[in-house]
Protein backbone atom coordinates (compact mmCIF):
# COMPACT_ATOMS: atom_id res chain seq x y z
CA UNK A 1 0.00 0.00 0.00
CA UNK A 2 1.39 3.38 -0.87
CA UNK A 3 2.23 5.53 2.12
CA UNK A 4 2.59 8.71 0.13
CA UNK A 5 -0.01 10.20 -2.11
CA UNK A 6 0.71 12.24 -5.17
CA UNK A 7 -1.07 15.45 -5.98
CA UNK A 8 0.40 17.48 -8.84
CA UNK A 9 -1.90 20.44 -8.24
CA UNK A 10 0.28 21.69 -5.42
CA UNK A 11 3.66 20.84 -6.83
CA UNK A 12 4.61 24.31 -7.98
CA UNK A 13 3.65 25.96 -4.70
CA UNK A 14 5.29 23.35 -2.55
CA UNK A 15 8.40 22.33 -4.36
CA UNK A 16 9.40 24.78 -7.09
CA UNK A 17 11.63 26.89 -4.86
CA UNK A 18 13.18 23.89 -3.25
CA UNK A 19 13.95 22.29 -6.59
CA UNK A 20 15.18 25.58 -7.97
CA UNK A 21 17.58 26.05 -5.11
CA UNK A 22 18.81 22.50 -5.58
CA UNK A 23 19.39 23.17 -9.26
CA UNK A 24 20.98 26.60 -8.98
CA UNK A 25 23.77 25.18 -6.82
CA UNK A 26 24.54 22.73 -9.63
CA UNK A 27 24.02 24.79 -12.76
CA UNK A 28 24.92 28.38 -12.30
CA UNK A 29 22.45 29.88 -14.74
CA UNK A 30 19.01 31.00 -13.56
CA UNK A 31 17.29 30.43 -16.90
CA UNK A 32 18.68 26.97 -17.34
CA UNK A 33 17.84 26.08 -13.75
CA UNK A 34 14.30 27.25 -14.28
CA UNK A 35 13.94 25.20 -17.44
CA UNK A 36 15.25 22.13 -15.69
CA UNK A 37 12.77 22.53 -12.86
CA UNK A 38 9.93 22.97 -15.31
CA UNK A 39 11.05 19.89 -17.23
CA UNK A 40 11.13 17.97 -14.00
CA UNK A 41 7.53 18.82 -13.22
CA UNK A 42 6.45 17.78 -16.71
CA UNK A 43 8.38 14.54 -16.48
CA UNK A 44 6.88 13.90 -13.08
CA UNK A 45 3.42 14.42 -14.47
CA UNK A 46 4.08 12.01 -17.30
CA UNK A 47 5.33 9.24 -15.10
CA UNK A 48 2.95 9.78 -12.23
CA UNK A 49 1.64 6.27 -12.49
CA UNK A 50 5.12 4.97 -11.76
CA UNK A 51 5.12 6.69 -8.41
CA UNK A 52 5.03 3.89 -5.89
CA UNK A 53 4.60 5.94 -2.78
CA UNK A 54 7.71 4.56 -1.19
CA UNK A 55 9.30 7.97 -0.94
CA UNK A 56 7.80 11.39 -0.47
CA UNK A 57 6.75 13.37 -3.49
CA UNK A 58 9.65 15.71 -3.03
CA UNK A 59 12.27 12.98 -2.89
CA UNK A 60 10.76 11.50 -6.01
CA UNK A 61 10.84 14.82 -7.83
CA UNK A 62 14.44 15.41 -6.75
CA UNK A 63 15.39 12.04 -8.21
CA UNK A 64 13.88 13.09 -11.53
CA UNK A 65 15.61 16.45 -11.31
CA UNK A 66 18.96 14.77 -10.75
CA UNK A 67 18.55 12.90 -14.02
CA UNK A 68 17.61 16.12 -15.76
CA UNK A 69 20.70 17.88 -14.49
CA UNK A 70 22.92 15.01 -15.59
CA UNK A 71 21.24 15.04 -19.01
CA UNK A 72 21.84 18.76 -19.23
CA UNK A 73 25.55 18.35 -18.68
CA UNK A 74 25.69 15.46 -21.12
CA UNK A 75 24.04 17.59 -23.74
CA UNK A 76 26.34 20.56 -23.41
CA UNK A 77 29.30 18.23 -23.39
CA UNK A 78 28.30 16.54 -26.61
CA UNK A 79 27.69 19.92 -28.17
CA UNK A 80 31.28 20.80 -27.57
CA UNK A 81 32.14 17.64 -29.44
CA UNK A 82 35.57 17.28 -28.04
CA UNK A 83 37.30 17.87 -24.82
CA UNK A 84 38.73 21.29 -24.91
CA UNK A 85 41.92 21.61 -23.06
CA UNK A 86 43.46 24.91 -23.68
CA UNK A 87 46.30 26.13 -21.60
CA UNK A 88 47.74 29.16 -23.21
CA UNK A 89 50.97 29.51 -21.48
CA UNK A 90 53.04 29.83 -24.58
CA UNK A 91 55.43 32.55 -25.46
CA UNK A 92 53.21 34.59 -27.76
CA UNK A 93 50.79 35.36 -24.98
CA UNK A 94 51.05 38.75 -23.45
CA UNK A 95 50.92 37.43 -19.95
CA UNK A 96 54.11 35.47 -20.33
CA UNK A 97 55.58 34.59 -17.02
CA UNK A 98 52.41 35.26 -15.08
CA UNK A 99 51.41 31.67 -14.95
CA UNK A 100 52.82 30.84 -11.58
CA UNK A 101 50.73 33.40 -9.81
CA UNK A 102 47.61 32.32 -11.58
CA UNK A 103 48.09 28.75 -10.57
CA UNK A 104 48.70 29.25 -6.90
CA UNK A 105 45.78 27.92 -4.90
CA UNK A 106 43.53 30.59 -3.55
CA UNK A 107 43.55 30.23 0.22
CA UNK A 108 40.15 31.87 0.44
CA UNK A 109 38.67 29.58 -2.14
CA UNK A 110 35.67 27.61 -1.06
CA UNK A 111 36.32 23.99 -0.33
CA UNK A 112 33.96 21.28 -1.47
CA UNK A 113 32.82 20.86 2.09
CA UNK A 114 31.83 24.48 2.38
CA UNK A 115 29.79 24.19 -0.77
CA UNK A 116 28.13 21.04 0.45
CA UNK A 117 27.23 22.64 3.73
CA UNK A 118 25.84 25.67 1.94
CA UNK A 119 23.66 23.52 -0.26
CA UNK A 120 22.28 21.66 2.69
CA UNK A 121 21.74 24.86 4.59
CA UNK A 122 19.88 26.30 1.63
CA UNK A 123 17.61 23.28 1.55
CA UNK A 124 17.07 23.48 5.31
CA UNK A 125 16.05 27.11 4.92
CA UNK A 126 13.58 26.19 2.21
CA UNK A 127 12.18 23.47 4.43
CA UNK A 128 11.52 26.06 7.11
CA UNK A 129 10.03 28.53 4.65
CA UNK A 130 7.67 25.83 3.45
CA UNK A 131 6.20 25.59 6.93
CA UNK A 132 5.35 29.27 7.05
CA UNK A 133 1.88 30.44 6.13
CA UNK A 134 1.72 31.24 2.43
CA UNK A 135 1.65 35.00 2.72
CA UNK A 136 4.47 35.10 5.24
CA UNK A 137 6.56 32.81 3.07
CA UNK A 138 5.99 34.98 0.05
CA UNK A 139 6.88 38.24 1.75
CA UNK A 140 9.85 36.73 3.53
CA UNK A 141 11.28 35.32 0.31
CA UNK A 142 10.83 38.56 -1.57
CA UNK A 143 12.36 40.64 1.15
CA UNK A 144 15.13 38.44 2.41
CA UNK A 145 16.17 36.21 -0.45
CA UNK A 146 15.34 38.24 -3.52
CA UNK A 147 16.14 41.49 -1.72
CA UNK A 148 13.24 43.54 -3.02
CA UNK A 149 12.64 47.03 -1.72
CA UNK A 150 9.91 47.41 0.86
CA UNK A 151 7.97 49.67 -1.46
CA UNK A 152 8.16 47.24 -4.37
CA UNK A 153 6.74 44.43 -2.28
CA UNK A 154 3.97 46.62 -0.93
CA UNK A 155 2.99 47.59 -4.45
CA UNK A 156 3.10 44.09 -5.82
CA UNK A 157 1.15 42.47 -3.01
CA UNK A 158 -1.00 45.48 -2.22
CA UNK A 159 -0.22 45.73 1.48
CA UNK A 160 0.88 48.62 3.68
CA UNK A 161 4.41 49.01 4.98
CA UNK A 162 3.41 48.42 8.59
CA UNK A 163 1.54 45.35 7.50
CA UNK A 164 4.68 44.16 5.77
CA UNK A 165 6.79 44.61 8.86
CA UNK A 166 4.35 42.67 10.98
CA UNK A 167 4.43 39.82 8.47
CA UNK A 168 8.22 39.98 8.32
CA UNK A 169 8.47 39.91 12.08
CA UNK A 170 6.25 36.85 12.41
CA UNK A 171 8.07 35.09 9.62
CA UNK A 172 11.47 35.85 11.12
CA UNK A 173 10.43 34.66 14.55
CA UNK A 174 9.17 31.38 13.13
CA UNK A 175 12.25 30.99 10.95
CA UNK A 176 14.55 31.52 13.94
CA UNK A 177 12.75 28.84 15.91
CA UNK A 178 12.69 26.44 12.98
CA UNK A 179 16.35 26.83 12.07
CA UNK A 180 17.28 26.65 15.72
CA UNK A 181 15.67 23.25 15.86
CA UNK A 182 16.86 21.91 12.53
CA UNK A 183 20.18 23.50 11.86
CA UNK A 184 22.13 25.23 14.60
Amino acid at each position, binding site marked *: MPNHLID*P*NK*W*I*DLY*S*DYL*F*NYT*ITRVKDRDIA*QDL*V*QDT*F*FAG*LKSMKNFKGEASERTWLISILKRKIIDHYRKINSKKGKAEIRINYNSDSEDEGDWLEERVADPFDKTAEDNLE*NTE*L*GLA*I*HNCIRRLPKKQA*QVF*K*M*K*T*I*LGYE*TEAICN*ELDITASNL*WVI*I*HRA*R*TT*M*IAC*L*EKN*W*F
Partner: protein
Amino acid sequence: MSKKNKIFVTCEEANHNCDKAQYNEATFWEKVKLVIHILYCRACRKHSSDNAKLSKTIAKSKVDCLKLKDKQKMKECFEKVLKQQQQQP
Protein backbone atom coordinates in the same frame (compact mmCIF):
# COMPACT_ATOMS: atom_id res chain seq x y z
CA MET B 1 7.38 63.58 26.67
CA SER B 2 6.15 63.46 23.14
CA LYS B 3 5.46 60.02 21.84
CA LYS B 4 7.82 60.32 18.91
CA ASN B 5 10.99 61.25 20.68
CA LYS B 6 11.14 59.13 23.75
CA ILE B 7 14.31 57.24 24.36
CA PHE B 8 12.76 54.27 26.10
CA VAL B 9 10.62 52.28 23.73
CA THR B 10 8.38 49.31 24.19
CA CYS B 11 9.51 45.83 23.26
CA GLU B 12 7.20 45.93 20.29
CA GLU B 13 8.79 49.00 18.87
CA ALA B 14 12.24 47.68 19.63
CA ASN B 15 11.39 44.53 17.70
CA HIS B 16 10.19 46.56 14.80
CA ASN B 17 13.42 48.54 14.77
CA CYS B 18 15.37 45.34 15.07
CA ASP B 19 13.69 43.85 12.00
CA LYS B 20 14.26 47.04 10.09
CA ALA B 21 17.90 47.06 11.08
CA GLN B 22 18.29 43.57 9.62
CA TYR B 23 17.46 45.00 6.22
CA ASN B 24 19.50 48.15 6.73
CA GLU B 25 16.37 50.22 6.75
CA ALA B 26 16.49 51.55 10.29
CA THR B 27 17.34 55.20 10.75
CA PHE B 28 20.12 56.25 13.06
CA TRP B 29 17.66 57.30 15.75
CA GLU B 30 15.85 53.99 15.52
CA LYS B 31 19.12 52.14 15.97
CA VAL B 32 19.96 54.23 19.02
CA LYS B 33 16.60 53.44 20.55
CA LEU B 34 17.10 49.75 19.85
CA VAL B 35 20.52 49.71 21.48
CA ILE B 36 19.22 51.50 24.56
CA HIS B 37 16.33 49.09 24.83
CA ILE B 38 18.61 46.10 24.48
CA LEU B 39 20.74 47.39 27.35
CA TYR B 40 18.04 46.63 29.87
CA CYS B 41 15.71 44.15 28.18
CA ARG B 42 17.05 40.62 28.23
CA ALA B 43 14.35 39.09 26.02
CA CYS B 44 14.90 41.59 23.27
CA ARG B 45 18.63 41.16 23.54
CA LYS B 46 18.20 37.45 22.87
CA HIS B 47 15.80 38.07 20.03
CA SER B 48 18.04 40.67 18.51
CA SER B 49 21.04 38.38 18.46
CA ASP B 50 18.95 35.52 17.06
CA ASN B 51 17.58 37.83 14.43
CA ALA B 52 21.06 38.85 13.36
CA LYS B 53 22.09 35.23 13.31
CA LEU B 54 19.22 34.44 10.95
CA SER B 55 20.31 37.18 8.57
CA LYS B 56 23.87 35.97 8.65
CA THR B 57 22.88 32.37 8.05
CA ILE B 58 20.73 33.23 5.09
CA ALA B 59 23.44 35.40 3.58
CA LYS B 60 25.99 32.65 4.08
CA SER B 61 23.84 29.96 2.52
CA LYS B 62 23.43 31.94 -0.70
CA VAL B 63 19.95 30.47 -0.81
CA ASP B 64 18.03 31.28 -3.93
CA CYS B 65 14.45 31.07 -5.06
CA LEU B 66 12.29 31.74 -8.05
CA LYS B 67 11.08 35.21 -8.82
CA LEU B 68 7.37 35.69 -8.38
CA LYS B 69 6.74 36.26 -12.06
CA ASP B 70 8.80 33.28 -13.16
CA LYS B 71 6.96 31.10 -10.72
CA GLN B 72 3.64 32.34 -12.01
CA LYS B 73 4.71 31.58 -15.57
CA MET B 74 5.83 28.14 -14.57
CA LYS B 75 2.53 27.55 -12.86
CA GLU B 76 0.50 28.59 -15.88
CA CYS B 77 2.53 26.36 -18.16
CA PHE B 78 2.22 23.47 -15.79
CA GLU B 79 -1.50 23.84 -15.29
CA LYS B 80 -2.09 23.77 -19.02
CA VAL B 81 -0.31 20.47 -19.33
CA LEU B 82 -2.01 19.18 -16.23
CA LYS B 83 -5.42 19.96 -17.65
CA GLN B 84 -4.58 18.25 -20.91
CA GLN B 85 -3.56 15.18 -19.07
CA GLN B 86 -6.61 15.10 -16.88
CA GLN B 87 -8.87 15.29 -19.90
CA GLN B 88 -7.33 12.18 -21.35
CA PRO B 89 -8.52 9.27 -19.28
